[in-house]
């Protein structure tokens, strides 16, 4: 297991920055590194942070207007012509509106279009349910040949963007609008694929992705104070899923709680249940959005309403552990105490 190099202040005074800001920096760096990188946007250049790339490489930037279906299909054509296209819009519209075009002209067509879905999750806040994309993880992970990545913070988003450009293939990168805590450091590793164990524990696996990894860390700290040893597994790459790392953790703890700012149906929660049901049956509690739409409100208040803050996750974990016996644990991970 490689060291993740958590920010030492993550639990006390984390720095805040929108995850999408990291994408903007990463795209600029990717553009500097490889002239095949091009960028397309659907009238949301600054809010998806593509202006850094546009201003540096105006000839390699394409403004398609408010036309998400055209954006990804033009990108597919550009990919066929040898480019590495990044498309950006809000996740509610891309992949929300253009899913079939992504499937047919990028994934099935084997073209390395990289779809950026910004403003995903309930942290969009005041814009309400229409703009709070909660189904994107589910929609994209069901697509054969599609990679799905949800970085935990802006630093990881920056690395993920560069990694995607360096290994072009059909991909979905999920970003968020609101300022969220930076959990990692410039030294933290990022590769497409691996899950990262941020905190080791043996009572339960807290398996989180995207913005929720920070809240899982907070929950684990609170649980430790109550004598509960929670392992925190960060899953930035939801597809292809790091099955070995997940199974190793659940094999050790015998129980898992998945945490995501998205629909639990078919999302990370669905993915973990599909994996464990076949390979290591264990009780799984899926935290996230429970088969309903979002609503207007302050992002922090919404997070509370949907019971996704660290303290609420800790509370839900403690309560659930009371009534959910752990599954058989792997012999190599039996409790030592």
């Amino acid at each position: 297991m490689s060291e993740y190099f958590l920010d030492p202040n993550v639990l006390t005074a984390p720095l805040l920055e929108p995850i999408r800001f990291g994408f903007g920096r990463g795209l600029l760096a990717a553009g500097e590194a490889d002239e095949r990188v091009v960028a397309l946007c659907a009238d949301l250049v600054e809010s998806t942070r593509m202006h850094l790339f546009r201003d540096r490489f105006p000839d390699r930037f394409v403004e398609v207007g408010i036309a998400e279906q055209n954006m990804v299909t033009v990108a597919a054509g550009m990919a066929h012509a040898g480019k590495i296209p990044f498309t950006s819009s809000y996740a509610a519209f891309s992949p929300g509106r253009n899913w079939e075009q992504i499937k047919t002209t990028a994934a099935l067509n084997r073209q390395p279009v990289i779809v950026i879905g910004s403003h995903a999750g309930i942290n969009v806040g005041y814009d309400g349910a229409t703009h709070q994309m909660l189904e994107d993880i589910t929609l994209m992970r069901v697509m054969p040949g599609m990679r799905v990545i949800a970085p935990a913070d802006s630093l990881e988003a920056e690395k993920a963007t560069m990694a995607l450009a360096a290994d072009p293939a059909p991909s979905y990168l999920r970003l968020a609008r609101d300022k969220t805590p930076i959990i990692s450091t410039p030294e933290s590793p990022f590769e497409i694929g691996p899950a990262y164990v941020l905190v080791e524990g043996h009572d339960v696996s807290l398996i989180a992705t995207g913005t929720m990894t920070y809240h899982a860390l907070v929950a684990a700290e609170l649980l430790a104070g109550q004598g509960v040893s929670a392992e925190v597994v960060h899953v930035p790459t939801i597809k292809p899923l790091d099955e070995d790392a997940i199974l190793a953790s659940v094999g050790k703890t015998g129980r898992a709680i998945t945490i995501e700012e998205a629909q639990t149906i078919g999302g990370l929660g669905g993915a973990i249940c599909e994996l464990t049901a076949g390979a290591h049956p264990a009780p799984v509690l899926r935290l996230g959005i429970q088969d309903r739409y979002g609503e207007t409100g302050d992002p922090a208040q919404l997070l509370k309403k949907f019971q996704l803050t660290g303290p609420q996750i800790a509370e839900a974990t403690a309560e659930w552990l009371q009534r959910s016996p752990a599954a058989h644990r792997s012999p190599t991970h039996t409790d030592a105490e």
Partner: protein
Amino acid sequence: MSDDVMTDEAVRAFARTDDEAELRKIAQVIRRDIVRMVATAGSGHPGGALGMAELLTVLYFNGMRHDPRDPGWPDRDVFFLSNGHTAPVLYATLARAGYFPVAELGTLRQLGSRLQGHPERGTLPGVESTSGPLGSGLSQAAGYAHVLRNIDQVRHRFVYTMMGDGELDEGNVWEAAMFAGKYRLGNLIGFIDRNNIQIDGATEDVMPLTDLRAKWESFDWHVLEIDGNNVRAVADAIGLSKAVSWAPTMIIAQTVPGKGVPFMEYDHRWHGMAPSPAQAEQALCALGGVA
């Protein structure tokens, strides 16, 4: 109907030609292939495919810069078939041009075939893009053309796409129309197979397209209207389109659906229905082939 029936024409690749009679002959060979393929498969879309034979023939045997021996030739022109349900005409054209064996046409729609029901890039040489869901070929062609013209500054290559007229009901088409006009994609040449039919009936009943020339001109396209079953008209239109460097060209090609098979012509029911063996024999006779 066995696979070797596909090979009644001399099985050799036809070469590029400027000869009108030769082009007409190739189109007719391709039409016979289409009838046999769809009849053998027992399903497929003969109507539009038959009507498009001259368009594909002139593109692949006269207008386009390509090399069947090197499908990925970096200096080639690129053709995006947007109305992917007309795959039989693309497959027959590619086979007759030498991209793959003509005998393979007999495997259309069969399990394990490279000739999928709708074209899929990556398995069959010469297929530039996966298509079937309508409306997305023009924007892919526009993306490719934008790279050539406005990013890589390549001036001698052209990008072609083919759409059905019913396909114009799709919103994605008009998003692409605006895009190509904005970026002045003079290296982009589109065709509309204007055969006036779609699955549910006449295009003007299902969703009126009205004045297509005016529509495309208003999006800053150069527009030509031709008889799409006349090889000379098609060749001339392609030549003229190449000369128009300041705007993309849309060639509205009036075609006869089911062209060459009297009982299929103009009948929208043959959009997506395969002929019976007896009907296929009748069709092949009408097309001048050996049944």
